[in-house]
């Protein structure tokens, strides 16, 4: 009986060892097939100079929502396209590498950046003091005016004070969400906040009356309303204006310097203006 038992222990342990081996094999195999996903592990780039690592790889890994027209979305050819994409490609070109995009829900973008799954997030990440505590930003590359957006039939909401008792939609993990929660909610009093993972869903719910209002910037609204005739409108004065920058990790001063230099050059030689006009139909105000 004793020897029998020991036999089982040995087989079990061997089996466990085998399965951990096999699992670690699983860890490398799918990576090869993951070329289009682009969020491969990059922990080897964590140490040392990340700019060098990017140059060596020939690729800068960029995270974005992919569902935020006209900033980043799929075009008719099913490629990611938009203002952010053009900016990212231009930045990559000026560093001498290619940009590789991964589309992921906004709420996961900054955690993924911190975990070095991306080298940069270029997805209308608004520069805020809270975020600056955990990640770094380049100089801003766009300023967005945020307005209150309501259903066409709604007439009783024109300012933040009117939110009281209503349901307000906002993007999960966005700067707008923390703005609503931390600044508007204490001032205005009770209203419900419903969070969304992309802009379209929130506008759809607004259109169908599931929420009373949302806040968003006008550039983001225009293509959506143009394209499918949502019965929604922007009301009142802009409630705030946000500046978005390229989000990068804190320990990457060389990357930041290189990106800032590229941004500055883009603005000086007119490339930035061309990209801006292409997507927003007007000249940048700065």
């Amino acid at each position, binding site marked *: 009986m004793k020897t*029998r*038992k020991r*036999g*089982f*222990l040995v*087989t*079990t*342990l061997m*089996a*466990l060892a085998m*399965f951990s081996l*096999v*699992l670690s094999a*699983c*860890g*490398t*195999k*799918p*990576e090869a*097939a*993951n070329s*289009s*996903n682009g*969020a*491969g*592990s*990059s*922990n080897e780039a964590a140490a040392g100079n990340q700019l060098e690592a990017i140059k060596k790889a020939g690729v800068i890994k960029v*995270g974005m929502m*992919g*569902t*935020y*027209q006209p900033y980043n*979305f*799929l*075009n008719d050819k*099913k490629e990611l396209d938009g203002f952010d994409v053009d900016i990212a490609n231009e930045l990559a070109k000026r560093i001498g590498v290619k940009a590789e995009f*991964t*589309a*992921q*829900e906004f709420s*996961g973008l900054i*955690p*993924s950046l911190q*975990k*070095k*799954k991306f080298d940069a997030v270029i997805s209308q990440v608004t520069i805020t003091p809270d975020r600056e505590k955990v990640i770094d930003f380049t100089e801003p590359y766009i300023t967005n005016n945020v307005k209150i957006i309501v259903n066409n039939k709604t007439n009783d909401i024109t300012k933040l004070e009117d939110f009281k008792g209503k349901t307000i939609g906002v993007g999960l993990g966005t700067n707008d969400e923390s703005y609503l929660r931390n600044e508007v909610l204490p001032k205005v009093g009770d209203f419900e906040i419903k969070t969304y993972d*992309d*802009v*379209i869903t929130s506008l*759809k719910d607004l259109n169908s009356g599931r929420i009373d209002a949302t806040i968003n910037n006008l550039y983001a609204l225009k293509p*959506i309303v143009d*394209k*499918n005739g949502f019965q929604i409108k922007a009301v009142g004065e802009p409630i705030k204006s946000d500046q978005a920058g390229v989000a990068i990790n804190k320990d990457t001063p060389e990357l930041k310097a290189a990106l800032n230099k590229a941004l500055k050059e883009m603005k000086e030689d007119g490339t930035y203006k061309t990209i801006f006009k292409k997507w927003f139909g007007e000249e940048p105000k700065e």
Partner: protein
Amino acid sequence: MLELMWENVPFLLKGAYYTLYITIVSMLFGLMIGLVVAVARLKGNRPVRWLARSYVSIIRGTPVLVQIAVIYYGLDDYGISFGSLTAACLALSINTGAYLSETFRGAILAVPKGQTEAAYATGMSPGQTMWRIILPQAVRIAIPPMGNTFVGMLKETSLVSVIGVSELMRQAQLLQAQYLRYMPFLLEIGIMYWIMSIGFSAILERVEKRLARAY
């Protein structure tokens, strides 16, 4: 609407590829984990049994979404970093493994005790008895509930869209944002998931029949 659905089939098929890929890889590893854990729970010594039981309890008692996040984001805190596809496969393998181990344990217990005794009587060792006598019979019993787990897994892959794997659900989300329409794409991926699960069921049915013939 049909036209919209039709012209986006290739794009969604790319997502279906990842969905299938993750499902199959996780199934294979889940099977191995499940088998090992089931045997460990039944025949292991005390610490091994305890370890196996804790694993099953923890995995079954927490949401898959949490497990995916733990592997993708959580482990990274300790310097263990996976790409999104790897993390997805790993999380789902570990998850399915726990469920399958219970299926196997039940199936092994369902094999009449007389079989073990008869095997011992012929002079087989416990290991031989397990691999040659008990497991072949247990696998047959385990197939229908295994089918449940596989089909469930296929659908659970939609959860890995949150870590940026471009599987079926994620591709549909991108299309929804592009066309600002929901129903066509939801319907379309619904059909694709359905077809894939029919496929799995059909394969398992064949395996079941084949195994039934052998005895």
